[in-house]
């Protein structure tokens, strides 16, 4: 219980992450194009790695309130979590980013005691979640991705039921429901049966259920999935205000925009493992300079892509070139100086290579993901969608 590390939490926060990274030598430059196939490389770029360890913003955030250490979970032959290490500081909005199937929901379900991991440890403050699940449940509010509502009961009755399950006094439940109904603007429809609620109403009721017992930690799994833009922004505003009041919010999302807008810090998961962690702005800044995307043709051949990679690797000021096979061998890299684009254009011309498309942009979280995994989040989503058996997953999630 309460295993405080003597070297302090700032150093300790990413210790597991660091140890894991030390086992590899992620020398990204100089790799042949063929080696950029995603599964062979699970390391973030050196820039991401360094950044995630020495983030000055980290020091502004609180002590870790959640710690997952070496958490593993498999569903039959499918490994959902492959030794996940994660630390979430208190008083912040922490985003778990990753494509569907990356292990986000599994990690959250383990934290919320709905699933037992195959291995690893989970701590909530000084509570060993696996040994004292009931204590942990008292401290957290969980808003699941597809939270079921009792269609026959009204929202108010649902909240009263949950108040009783959290052992609140009856008068306290009544007061709290009135308070939440006003704050989340639920009054006009709270007495209607839940079966008649829209997606936005359901989400608000879910959130109210999670907040009913005033938990210091709120865990939200894809909180804005299926919501329209207006509802999404309204929910974001609520989450920001909750953070302002001292709550720690851990949310999972596969929407880059959402994590970018909300999260003070984030962890990127891919295939059940942590691939990068840190404040979004610094993860992006660590990529260095401007992001350049180059396509020689609509579908560039492997040979031509290799040729360009060879050119880029000789060019000073170019970092982290990646061939994105899912996008017709488009080549992405970061240029320290925008003038490098002109140099490159000339070099391509000299080598008789055409330019189908050449674009410049500021680095995004998708670039962070691309840099770490060799594919964009969208590509990962599509690849995962083809392999997932949602029916089997639903069965697996049943108690």
């Amino acid at each position, binding site marked *: 219980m309460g295993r405080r590390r003597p070297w302090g939490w700032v150093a300790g926060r990413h210790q597991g992450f660091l140890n894991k990274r030390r086992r590899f030598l992620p020398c990204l430059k100089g790799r042949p194009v063929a080696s950029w196939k995603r599964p062979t490389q699970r390391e973030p770029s050196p820039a991401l790695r360094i950044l995630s360890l020495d983030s000055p913003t980290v020091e502004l955030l609180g002590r870790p309130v959640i710690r997952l250490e070496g958490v593993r979970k498999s569903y039959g032959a499918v490994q959902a979590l492959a030794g996940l290490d994660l630390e979430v500081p208190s008083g912040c909005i922490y985003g778990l980013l990753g494509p569907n199937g990356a292990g986000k929901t599994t990690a959250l379900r383990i934290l*919320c*005691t*709905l699933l037992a991991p195959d291995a690893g440890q989970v701590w909530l403050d000084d509570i060993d979640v696996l040994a004292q699940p*009931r*204590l942990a*449940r*008292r401290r957290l509010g*969980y808003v*699941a991705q*597809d*939270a*079921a*509502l*009792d269609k*026959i*009961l009204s929202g108010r*009755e649902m909240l*009263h*039921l*949950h108040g*009783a*399950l*959290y*052992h*609140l*006094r009856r008068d*306290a439940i009544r007061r709290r429901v009135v*308070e*939440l109904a*006003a*704050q*989340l*603007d639920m009054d006009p429809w709270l007495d209607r049966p839940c079966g008649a609620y829209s997606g*936005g109403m359901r989400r*608000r009721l879910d*959130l*109210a*259920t999670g*907040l009913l*017992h*005033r*938990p*210091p930690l*709120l865990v939200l799994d894809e909180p804005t999935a299926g919501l329209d833009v207006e*509802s999404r922004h*309204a*929910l974001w*505003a*609520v989450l*920001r*205000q*909750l953070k*302002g*009041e*001292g*709550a720690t919010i851990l949310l999972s999302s596969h929407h880059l925009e959402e994590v970018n807008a909300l999260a003070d810090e984030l962890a990127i998961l891919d295939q059940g493992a942590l691939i990068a962690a840190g404040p979004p702005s610094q993860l992006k800044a660590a990529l260095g300079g401007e992001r350049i995307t180059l396509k020689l043709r609509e579908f560039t051949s492997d040979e031509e892509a290799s040729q360009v990679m060879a050119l880029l690797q000789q060019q000073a000021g170019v970092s982290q070139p990646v061939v994105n096979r899912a996008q017709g061998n488009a080549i992405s890299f970061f240029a320290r100086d925008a003038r490098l684009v002109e140099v490159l254009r000339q070099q391509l011309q000299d080598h008789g290579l055409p330019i189908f498309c050449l674009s410049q942009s500021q680095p995004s979280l998708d670039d962070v993901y691309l840099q770490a995994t060799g594919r964009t989040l969208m590509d990962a989503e599509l690849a995962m969608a083809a392999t997932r058996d949602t029916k089997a997953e639903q*069965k697996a*999630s*049943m*108690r």
Partner: protein
Amino acid sequence: MTGLTANAPSTAPRPSEDSGASAWGEVLQETLALTGRLFLQLQRRPTTLVAGVLQPLIWLVLFGALFQEAPEGLLPGGLSYGHFLSAGIIVFTAFSGALNAGLPVMFDREFGFLNRLLVAPLRSRYSIVLASALYITSLSGVQTLAIMGAAAILGNGWPSASGLVVVVMVLLLLVLAVTGLSLGLAFALPGHIELLAVIFVANLPLLFASTALAPLSFMPPWLAWLAALNPLSFAIEPIRAVYNGAPNWSTVVLAAPYGSVTMGACLLVLAGLAGLLFLSIRPLLRRRLG
């Protein structure tokens, strides 16, 4: 979703809102809340209750009419078929109701509502099972009372006060045993289709292979053996006995091929069965709810 930004819900902990109840008080609070939910569902969708009364009532009326002209001496003690049938239909009503106990739990599993309950810091997760058992027992009680009333109106009699106590005891034990079985199935089977299949397959054969519709003497030997081993017969015969006279624990109520069974023995068998079933589903419940 508009108008949410003015005041975000506070997360400041306020321990004074906690009920401060003892462990048993907390179990009671959560069990009552969960049972209350099931009764609210029943109140708004009373179809289950109505169907649960109508089905045995139709059996009582139609089967009673079918064998109304049965030759005298066919039934032991010279009973009319209506008198004979009542006990069987009463037990069948309670049995059918209890066999459905697992359905709400199965739907909660399938729709994810069970997970929502399990995130809460329940003092005992068995309160979910207890709430289902309480609900089904009450529901079966109401349905059985309705059938007993209907049987009385049809002229099939009403037990004495002490006989009524035996009826309640027998039905309670039977409902507990079958509820345990059904809840176990609800956690063991993968979905409601499978559970419904088991219910459909079990329901009528168990009724026919019991003494609900005909006495043992009327059956071929193999069926008489089956019926004499069927737990439903151990519930039907004591009730039939108290409909025909004052209860006596040592009265032989079932002349089974393997020997005579007294009223007391029937209750003991039912109690043992209920205990055994609840004990056998405990590991499964611990695995699913623990």
